[in-house]
């Protein structure tokens, strides 16, 4: 599931949980799913990937050639 889908599912869960009229079983399942989704999303947001690349070339089909961006001043 991509990030946007996770987010929208999470929002859906929040709304359902706030509705309140769930069985304990359902609410437990939603709770677990929601917390997992939230953690996934937060992980994705805070994971220090910092993929900084420099575009070298791009062909007519839009295929890009990149190289890691290095601080060229230092």
């Amino acid at each position, binding site marked *: 599931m991509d990030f946007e889908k996770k987010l929208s599912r*999470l929002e859906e*869960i929040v709304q359902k949980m706030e509705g*309140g009229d769930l069985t304990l079983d359902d609410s437990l399942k939603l709770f677990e799913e929601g*917390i997992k989704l939230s953690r996934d999303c*937060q992980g994705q947001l805070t*994971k220090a990937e910092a*993929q*900084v690349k420099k*575009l070298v070339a791009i062909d007519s089909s839009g295929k890009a050639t990149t190289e890691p961006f290095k601080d060229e001043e230092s």
Partner: protein
Amino acid sequence: MSQDTSNTTFETSNSSSNKNRDAVVYSVEQLNVTIRQTLENQLGIIWLQAEISNFKPHTSGHFYFSLKDSKAQISAIMFRGSNSKLKFKPHDGLEVIVRGRITVYEPRGTYQIICETMEPVGAGALQKQFEQLKEKLKLEGLFDSLRKKVLPSFPKHIAVVTSPTGAAIQDILNIMKRRAPHVAVTVVPAVVQGAAAAPQLREAFTKAVMLQPDVIIIGRGGGSIEDMWCFNDEALARLISSCDIPVISAVGHEIDFTICDFVADLRAPTPSAAAELVAKSSTELLQKLNQWERLIRNSFEKIFRLKVQAAVNVGKRLIDPKRKLMDYSVRNDELFSRLEQATKVYLTHQRKDLNLLQQRMVSPVQLVQKLKISNDHLKLRLLAETKKNITNSHVHVKSLMSLLDSLSPLRVVDRGFSITQKNNKVIKSVSEVKIGDDIAVRVTDGYIQATVKGVQNGF
């Protein structure tokens, strides 16, 4: 006033020698006022190209300086209100074009130019070009706010069109690293100043669009207006305008405006600010996630509490059958006791009633006995009463007889008295008899027959 007086005196004293009687004689004040009015009316607002010299910014904020060329000079003032709008610092030797009005400082009889706008020569032409292009694109609707695209709420990939060696990219990367490390950044290199810059920027921008990032940042760090001129390129502006990816323009400093800034979806005052704008949405997203997580936890806890409470409530209604049996047994005993008690009470009442009834009920034998007793009693009473009555009667009779005896006239006779009767009637008065009447006189032991011989009235 004294000047006026002296003028008048002069006029008067010289009137004879002055042949031109029609000439107006001014006071200095009048003259200066007239000069001022003439200059202001004749020249009005003028444009003047000259070099600045003797530049003195006063503590009041006003600028005092001279404007000169090789042959002449004029005093100039630029008041604070006007000079605060300048985007450059005037200095001696700078060739400028000013727009202003000529005025006369009457107390000293000097004239000067009050500058309203000032542009460095050369920049003026660029500025004019800039204004014309801006107006043209504005009329075409390229700056319309309706055209502006909204930044995505969670960009994952951004492209930055700028110099890979400039300060701008460093600022942007620093902020992205710190605030939104999850966002991938592709640097699309371009020269950002000089004659080659505009076509390179266009090419780099086109490449950036082909990468299909979520946001494109185009910009550079601060510099002179000439340095940033490539961002006023019409073709670049049209590329940005037609691009369907949100574009943030971040050229120079806050005070610098370029065509790029107007046509982009968002203008950031600096490259750092552009990065902040992108990263801000990530921070917001993180906050939102935290908030959602809290909501889920709270909601779950609430549901859990409700269910537990419900279970407790139902549990309270469930009763152990043994206990129920005991309950029933106890209840049975209780009811039994109550029944017993009630029966006792009932019987007691009944017995009482029965006793009362028995008491009230008399047997015939008893009744007969009772009646017999009563009868005997009555008989006795009757006998007694009768006896008593007879006795009483005897007594009464005796007493009556005694009374009667005492009252009997015969008793009087016994004592010597006699009763005289005529035809068996007792004679009480002499008038009842006349001579010759036969009368009988009763004495104790019989009658004496007599005839009346005389009657004597009174004794």
